[in-house]
């Protein structure tokens, strides 16, 4: 299978869906003529023209709300947030209008919108640009949220998100954009809500999503090579809907769980998974569920400190050794 980048995989997903359905339109800041701040939409403007690939002014609340309204008429907007951090200026449109109009209308309205962009720290952009609100979104019934960790998953999940008739918020990563991975040439779609066991193991289960999956796999490798410890790595991929079964099955097998995420700890995704595990696999747990999250402070700029603030393989290894 050819290896392509996470960025290319997303672009391929857009091209396939733009060709498949004329109602799909990509809207965001610098997505068209500029080819995308992170080049995820590079070349699309040339291929599809100004009707399908639209540059927006710096008005996230305005154009995202606009997408929600247009979705009511059957347009299928794929909205780019240059950073997920900027969702905060459009929060009401995303958490009220996109999430509740279907409910408040008794099911009369569909909102087939995708809102996507990078949500990650680790690149020295500081506190205002490093928010990862997947936990806020997953807290909100009416919304779906996925955090792909690999090029393969990014393409398959993005295609599913665009075809979904509910609002799906997709969180990518400016770091992962450059990561390569094998992606088949033939078309495929990955259903939302299906976790992926990225590594089989028997000693302990690591549950992660997004960039943390990559760090966890690296840690798993080192644990095997240097410490002969065999951990299983479950990539949630989709936070809501959530594949509870795969997580619980894994923990029932390994009897130990470590949850890794880039988010801040208080009410992070890990807190929900921890509750779920102790609730559904209480008698299988040999030890408390443990977590690794970002160090609990706003994202620091100083590069070497930011590297420490976010979960890394070495920290995961250390934690696993403590747990066993």
């Amino acid at each position, binding site marked *: 299978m050819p290896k392509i980048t996470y960025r290319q995989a997303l672009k391929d997903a857009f091209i396939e869906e733009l060709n498949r359905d004329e109602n799909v*339109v990509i809207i965001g800041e610098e997505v068209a003529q500029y080819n995308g701040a992170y080049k995820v939409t590079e070349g699309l403007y040339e291929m599809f023209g100004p*009707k399908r690939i639209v540059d*927006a*002014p710096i*008005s996230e*609340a*305005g*154009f*995202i*709300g*606009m*997408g*929600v*309204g*247009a*979705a*009511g*008429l*059957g*347009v299928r907007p794929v909205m780019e947030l240059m950073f997920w951090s900027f969702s905060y200026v459009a929060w*009401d*449109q995303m958490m*009220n*209008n996109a999430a509740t*109009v*279907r*409910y*408040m*209308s*008794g*099911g*009369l*309205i*569909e909102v*087939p919108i995708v809102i996507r962009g990078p949500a990650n720290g680790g690149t020295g952009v500081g506190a205002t640009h490093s928010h990862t609100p997947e936990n806020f979104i997953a807290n909100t*019934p*009416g919304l*779906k949220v996925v955090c792909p960790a690999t090029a393969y998953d990014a393409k398959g999940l993005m295609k*599913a998100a665009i*075809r*979904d*008739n*509910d609002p799906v918020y997709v969180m990518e990563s400016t770091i992962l954009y450059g990561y390569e991975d094998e992606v088949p040439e033939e078309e495929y*779609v990955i*259903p*939302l*809500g*299906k*976790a992926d066991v990225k590594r089989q193991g028997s000693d302990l289960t690591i549950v992660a999503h997004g960039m943390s999956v990559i760090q966890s796999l690296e840690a798993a490798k080192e644990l095997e090579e240097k410490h002969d410890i065999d951990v299983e790595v479950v990539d949630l991929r*989709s936070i*809501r*809907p*959530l*594949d*509870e*079964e795969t997580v619980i099955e894994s923990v029932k097998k390994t009897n130990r769980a470590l949850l890794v995420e880039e988010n801040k700890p208080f009410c992070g995704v890990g807190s*929900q998974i921890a509750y779920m595990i102790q*609730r559904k696999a209480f008698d299988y747990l040999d030890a408390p569920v443990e977590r690794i999250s970002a160090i609990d402070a706003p994202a620091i700029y100083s590069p070497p400190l930011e590297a420490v603030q976010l979960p890394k393989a070495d920290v995961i290894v250390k934690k696993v050794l403590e747990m066993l």
Partner: protein
Amino acid sequence: MSTANASKRHTDIKPKKADLAKENKLAINKSLSKDELIGYYRDMIRIRRFEERSLRVYQQGKIAGFLHLYIGQESIAVGCASLMGEHDHLITTYRCHGHALAVGMTMNELAAELQGKATGCSKGKGGSMHFFDPSKNFWGGHGIVGGQTPLGAGIAYGLKYKDLKGCCMCFLGDGAINQGAFHESLNLAALWDLPVIFIIENNGYSMGTSQERSSAHPKEGLAARAEGYAMNWAHVNGESIFDIREAVGDAIKLAHEESKPSLLEIHTYRYQGHSVADANAKKYRTKEEIDDYRKNHDPLNLYKEYILSKKLLTEEEAKEIDKAAKEEADNAAKFAEESPYPPVEDITADVYWETDNPDQRTSEGRMFFND
């Protein structure tokens, strides 16, 4: 995009007293049939009677939360809805009962929604502030001040995207103009030539705050903010359904033919409190002010006088229409009363299209997280 093309047709801020006889002769109005002219009266009085009835139901404790009444502003919803064609859409605020009736929703489904019944337009899920019926091009009913304005621009965007010759009338209040989302919507609408008509129903107050205490604006009024976006704008006298039809008709033409947006400021008044729960309704304005509007500027009375003077109706016939409206409202309240509440399982229905259509579900995993 960058050259101002603002038509200043009605620029006197408080338009002078309506002269319906004169305005009935305006191009857009002069060909109206007798039935249509009588229909407007019926539509306006149906709204008023529905609201009055709803007020009593609320006072009986059968409606929860807020109840924002439209009494005094009926000419706007009726006048605007009277101009809607197949591809013209409407979206408004929590003060949405008049618009819902004007686009043809039934008193029954609205009254039932107010009481949270399964027979309500939103199955009892939305309540007073959140009426919807997309099949009638009515997109709600929105509770967050200004929050509907990007949606209005989006409906217009959808029409343009699908090459449909239509527009979206997006209503908001005078206090809502100071929400950021509205400003962003104005710029997007003007920048992208979206066929949206933003209609400020200026009733002079946002809750207890007068226009002067909430908005800095030029002599030319709130609508003049459109100049900053090189957008068409106008002031309209809400007393006169004819005046409303003319101004909105022009804006619709601009939307249909040139795909250009407009910002209209329609001057009106609400007699009731901001919501029924608004105990201070009479504290931030004088009784005299309210009485003056009721006596001299009430769109329903002025219109009734006019059609009576035109002998389109006799006093008797007018009374009949009023009586029918009252009965319709009474029956609707009764229908609501007798309707069942939704079943408890309904709480988690209509959250996701996918769980509402299990046979077509493509995703997997858990959707809901109790337990």
